[in-house]
């Protein structure tokens, strides 16, 4: 066993590190550093998307014929690590990482041709329409209904927690087309133009002060039937596939956590006029060590997953273990950051996005710590709550030898 890069991999790493350093505008880097919502702000991630697109590197994971780079798993891993290291934002989370893989797997040639190029170019920005007020972790309970009417579906219902729906051009929507049989049956997947008549959006403010998620109301929204993915009733298996892709790709968690740790260390270095108190300082350093160790181990788990050795020991639930641990470790780093900054972390500025506030970058980074902590509580709730992951891990344990 070893953790060495080959000469080719090293050269690749150097090449992309150099590229990112040269291509990433300071303004975007600074904005990303004070991003307090879960997803990167549209006005940070979109310009970076355009830069990557122009460099032909917007969609490393896609097949080459659709604009992918042809990089292997290790190269994609290095690409993501270098992103975090440089402080670059993650682009077009929904379109690139959820919608595109779904289209690639389930879409018709026409759908691929119609939608993929516009995702790649950044022309279309996507959101998801899965959760509902009564169906969060339990998707099978969804009730937003679509009725076939000629060549169209007519959709009525309410969706909740649509990240960046207020920026989106399209939504990947789950609807109920039949209430017969098990609740998992009768779910269908549609692609909806956000400008459709009858569709309206209510932004929801988070406790961190951000407008990131929305409630989306569909009132007799008409969706052409050729915007259905798969067949009627295929929605459940499409959603399951998509969520497993999401879980597996929720990384590069190690890189994200390292970037959180780097921010914490910056806070530590910047404390002004700190009366030296050797014991308090060293106590804090031991706590930081504890978190640094956790990050090392999350990264090791990710590398094991990348090398397909993790699931041997996790009964196939490796991605769940990483999701569970990385979300908790992130929250613990956030808590420690509060402690590192000390009393002044309670200062609050209501304006969002925070990078628009007229203040120095150091002050903005400090102002970001409390809302990052607050919004960060979502990590153990969304994308499969901790309780759901534990259930998956236990089932895998029971099924293993």
């Amino acid at each position, binding site marked *: 066993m070893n953790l060495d890069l080959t000469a080719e991999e090293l050269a690749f790493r150097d090449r992309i590190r150099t590229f990112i350093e040269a291509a990433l505008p300071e303004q975007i880097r600074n904005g990303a550093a004070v991003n307090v919502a879960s997803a990167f702000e549209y006005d940070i991630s979109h310009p970076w998307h355009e830069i990557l697109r122009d460099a032909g590197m917007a969609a490393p994971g896609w097949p080459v014929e659709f604009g992918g780079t042809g990089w292997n798993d290790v190269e994609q891993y290095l690409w993501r690590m270098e992103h975090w290291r440089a402080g670059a934002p993650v682009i077009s989370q929904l379109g690139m990482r959820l919608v595109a893989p779904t289209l690639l797997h389930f879409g018709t040639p026409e759908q691929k041709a119609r939608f993929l190029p516009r995702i790649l170019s950044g022309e279309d920005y996507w959101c998801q329409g899965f*959760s509902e007020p*009564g169906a*969060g*972790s*339990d998707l099978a*309970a969804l009730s937003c209904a679509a009725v076939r009417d000629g060549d169209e579906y007519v959709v009525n219902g309410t969706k*909740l*927690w649509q990240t960046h729906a207020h920026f989106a051009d399209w939504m990947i929507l789950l609807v109920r087309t039949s209430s017969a049989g098990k609740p998992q049956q009768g779910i269908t997947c549609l692609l909806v133009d956000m400008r459709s008549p009858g569709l309206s959006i209510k932004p*929801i*403010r*988070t*406790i961190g002060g951000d407008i990131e*998620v929305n409630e989306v109301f569909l009132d007799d929204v008409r969706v052409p039937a050729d915007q259905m993915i798969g067949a009627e009733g295929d929605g459940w298996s499409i959603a399951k596939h998509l969520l497993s892709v999401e879980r597996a790709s929720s990384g590069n968690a190690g890189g994200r956590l390292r970037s959180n740790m780097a921010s914490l260390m910056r806070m530590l270095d910047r*404390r*002004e*006029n*700190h*009366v030296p*108190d050797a*014991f*308090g300082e060293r*106590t*804090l350093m031991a706590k930081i060590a504890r978190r640094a160790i956790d990050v090392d181990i999350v990264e090791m788990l990710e590398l094991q997953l990348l090398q397909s050795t993790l699931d041997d020991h996790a009964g196939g639930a490796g991605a769940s273990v990483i999701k569970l641990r990385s979300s908790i470790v992130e929250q613990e780093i956030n*808590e420690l950051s*509060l*402690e590192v900054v*000390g*009393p*002044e*972390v*309670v*200062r*609050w*500025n*209501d304006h969002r996005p925070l990078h628009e506030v007229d203040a120095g970058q150091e002050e903005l980074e400090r102002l970001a710590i*409390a809302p990052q*902590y*607050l*919004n960060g*509580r*979502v990590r*153990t*709730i*969304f994308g499969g*709550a*901790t*309780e759901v992951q534990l259930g998956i891990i236990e089932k895998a344990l029971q099924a293993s030898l």
Partner: protein
Amino acid sequence: MDLKYSSEQDLLRDSAFGYLSSVYDYHARCRIVAGKEAIDRSIWAKFAELGWLALPIPEEDEGIGGDAVDLSVVMEALGSRLVVEPFLPTVVLGAGLIDLLATGEQRAILAEVAQGTAMLALAHQERGVPFGSPRVETRAERSGEGWSIRGAKILAIGAGLADHVLVPARISGAIDDAEGVGVFVVSRGTPGLELTEYPIADGRRAADLSIDIAGLSDSALLGGCENALPALEQVIDKAIAASCAYVVGGLDMLIRLTRDYTAGRSQFGKPLGRFQVVQHRLAEMQVKRIEARAAMQLAAIRCDGPRIERIRAISAAKVKVSEAARYIAHQAVQLHGGMGLTEELSVGTYLKHVLTFERLLGDTDDHLRRYAQLLADGRIDVRRGLVNEGAEA
């Protein structure tokens, strides 16, 4: 030994919870916080009318002469609604410090507080000074018959509202000396006092002070006292005890909200509250709340007692209440799912208050260190129980 509320305290409790539940629901609080001053002065007037503002003020100063347990009763009620009006800075910190130090005419402020006509704030925090340190960089110097003061303070809660700000400043000695510090009363509008006000995470407001005041009258120095740090320590300990009561009031609310939400919300075909892990989580929250409440009551009982036993109880309470509050608020948010993370429900606002509570007036590590020092010095004897054993023991 008596751990029951007196009948007066029971009445006070009923009246406090009753009044606040009628005027201070979450939406009312949101409206108040969004307002210009971020407080509601008519509610403050009602506090005065109900006698709450007079509670800890001695009878000879036109107060009621209540003790720290009385105060904890009101604080618990205020915390259950996350009341933002400046009760802590005015009544506990401000009036508390004046009561400890002031003499003669200076004590007249106490009656103004009791009547609701004066708000106060304490501006003791300086940038980068750890909890419990005697370090005071702000300097006061004799100038003729009066004083001039120069320095800076941060995070003075409620200072933007205060008619009088209490400013500890060093009169003599080196920057870290235990003695040589006095507390000055600086009234709003005094030339050379500049306030920069800003919100803090839980919606209350604080201010940073830039101080360059000349010609402050001699009577501004409370009690003429140049050794005020012990009184400052004592009043901060009282404020910690009171803050603990405030937080504990919120924890009760959080647990009820979470219990009721999980009872009503179904997932995977049954109410969340019927999942065993949710049930045990609620029970863990309840255990921590009950412990936090015991710690808070012990702190209130010890507030006015001898220093070592006071510190033992106050630091214990800060540690226990912080731990309980963080756990309960996190779990309340978690069990509310996404809804707990929106401003539509009050849950997240309690979490925001817990965030500020943990960081202000010494964090968990600060208080563990303070307690550990007394253990190491043999001044806390782990074999000694809580019951006061009289002089002999």
